[in-house]
């Protein structure tokens, strides 16, 4: 077994060797600029770009003309939210989102607030799913856009985007979905789903980093105000020379995802169930987020009375994350778990395991045994575990640090 065992597929995935192989000729031989119309170098590159666009469209059952290339899901989220908010500004300046969205959505919303827009940040239910009652009540006459993610990056729960989209449609409100974590994990049919804008990333689905796409619905047509100006590429929505090799990689990654998703998901579900059963016998373990309405690729658990960062040190032969990889460099506990109403202690004690294409049963068994040893060792030196075992209610203790 190669150490450390990689169980952080929600952070990023390796490029599938089939994808890498297809990309390489577009760096060396077929290096043409797809915008060059006057020679075969350009034509070859353009053909490859359009074939990749078809593959991305096919995975989500969209028209290829509805796919815009971007640098990744962060840019797609920015372009969708800022682009639509600004284009439809005269219709209204109120937006709705969820507190457990990725920072690429939340920080974009904050920026719009600074520009004078108003944003409602909804609390999820304790299981991480949208509270439809609160959602219905959040709409205003001037609401122009709703942005709710498909699959959450930290806890893997799947939002009911069909139902959310239907409520937006009834009110004539644009609906954007961040689908960075769902391609290749959940079937997406944009011919049926009432979604107007959807963000995609290649590197969460065994494609390269640095490339993504934005779906922009044609019927009814959604208009955006461009953020990147230049050569008028991508129908003026996103200027900049297309990264042919990256695009070819994303196309191939999404083709493989379409063909192998069903078989891969059931294999990963079996591995997730094995991991869950393996850690469920540890005392005081809490699973974060709904277990049913969730992709099998993610298991997020809190090991009470053990601090997450020290637990990650103890299981350094496992590549996992504590909260989101983007937030673990700060000392703040996961804002996603806090939004679910988890206590700071449980948020501090959380580990996200994410399983993927190359995870084996042996990897999972190794992880289970390591976690058992680590949790036991850290609880042996944990004063909170000692207090818990002595029957002391930790939430009733007056902590000295509170007076600081």
């Amino acid at each position, binding site marked *: 077994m190669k150490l450390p065992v990689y169980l952080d597929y929600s952070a990023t995935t390796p490029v599938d060797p089939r994808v890498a192989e297809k990309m390489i000729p577009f760096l060396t031989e077929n290096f043409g600029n797809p915008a060059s119309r006057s020679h075969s170098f350009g034509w070859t590159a353009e053909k490859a770009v359009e074939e990749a666009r078809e593959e991305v469209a096919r995975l989500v059952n969209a028209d290829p003309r509805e796919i815009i290339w971007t640098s990744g899901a962060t840019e797609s989220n920015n372009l969708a939210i800022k682009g639509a908010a600004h284009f439809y500004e005269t219709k209204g300046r109120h937006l709705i989102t969820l507190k457990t969205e990725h920072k690429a959505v939340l920080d974009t919303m904050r920026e719009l607030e600074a520009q004078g827009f108003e944003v409602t940040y909804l609390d999820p239910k304790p299981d991480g799913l949208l509270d439809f009652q609160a959602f219905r009540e959040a709409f205003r006459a001037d609401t122009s856009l709703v942005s709710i993610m498909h699959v959450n990056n930290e806890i893997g729960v799947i939002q009911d985007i069909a139902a959310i989209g239907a409520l937006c449609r009834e009110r004539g409100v644009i609906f954007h979905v961040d689908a960075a974590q769902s391609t290749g994990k959940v079937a997406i049919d944009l011919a049926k789903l009432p979604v107007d804008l959807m963000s995609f990333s290649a590197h969460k689905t065994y494609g390269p980093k640095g490339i993504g796409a934005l779906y922009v619905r044609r019927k009814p047509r959604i208009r955006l105000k461009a953020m990147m100006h230049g050569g008028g590429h991508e129908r003026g929505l996103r200027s900049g020379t297309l990264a042919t090799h990256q695009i070819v990689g994303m196309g191939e990654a999404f083709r493989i995802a379409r063909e192998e998703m069903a078989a891969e998901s059931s294999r990963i579900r079996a591995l997730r169930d094995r991991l869950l059963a393996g850690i469920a016998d540890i005392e005081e373990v809490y699973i974060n987020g709904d277990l049913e309405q969730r992709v099998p690729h993610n298991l997020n658990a809190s090991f009470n009375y053990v601090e997450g*960062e020290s637990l990650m040190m103890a299981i350094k032969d496992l590549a996992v994350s504590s909260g989101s990889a983007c937030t673990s460099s700060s000392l703040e506990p996961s804002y996603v778990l806090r939004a679910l109403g988890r*206590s700071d202690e449980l948020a*501090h004690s959380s580990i996200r395991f994410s399983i993927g294409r190359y995870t084996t049963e042996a990897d999972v068994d190794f992880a289970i045994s390591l976690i058992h040893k680590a949790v036991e060792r850290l609880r*042996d*030196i*944990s*004063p*909170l575990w000692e207090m818990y075992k002595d029957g002391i209610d930790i939430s009733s203790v007056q902590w*000295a*640090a509170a007076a600081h």
Partner: protein
Amino acid sequence: MAYNDKVIDHYENPRNVGSFDKEDDGVGTGVVGAPACGDVMKLQIKINDEGVIEDAKFKTYGCGSAIASSSLVTEWVKGKTVEQALAIKNTEIAEALALPPVKIHCSVLAEDAIKAAVSDYKAKSGTAEDGYKVCQSAA
């Protein structure tokens, strides 16, 4: 984040883990930090009739640097008088473990733990001086 070797050594082989009976007259117990902040340290010192710290034990909930800081402190206070132990500064702990700036609060907490343990001992043995507050913090 990548840890310094000294932190990893104390984290993997923590010194003096455990507990004394906190009702024992010769034992001072200091519990500092809060679970909500991600750090709780319990430091106990056993003091003999000459006012020398004979033994020390700790338990810590927190990151690797917090565990290492408290482990190191149990080594340092042994054999010291109470007054000498109180002279240990968080900067010395941070320096010994080469803590990065984001982890300095762990060394502050370890210094606080010594003061809290000594203060508890003095309160029990009736030698408490007026004035020292457990919660005065450099953080």
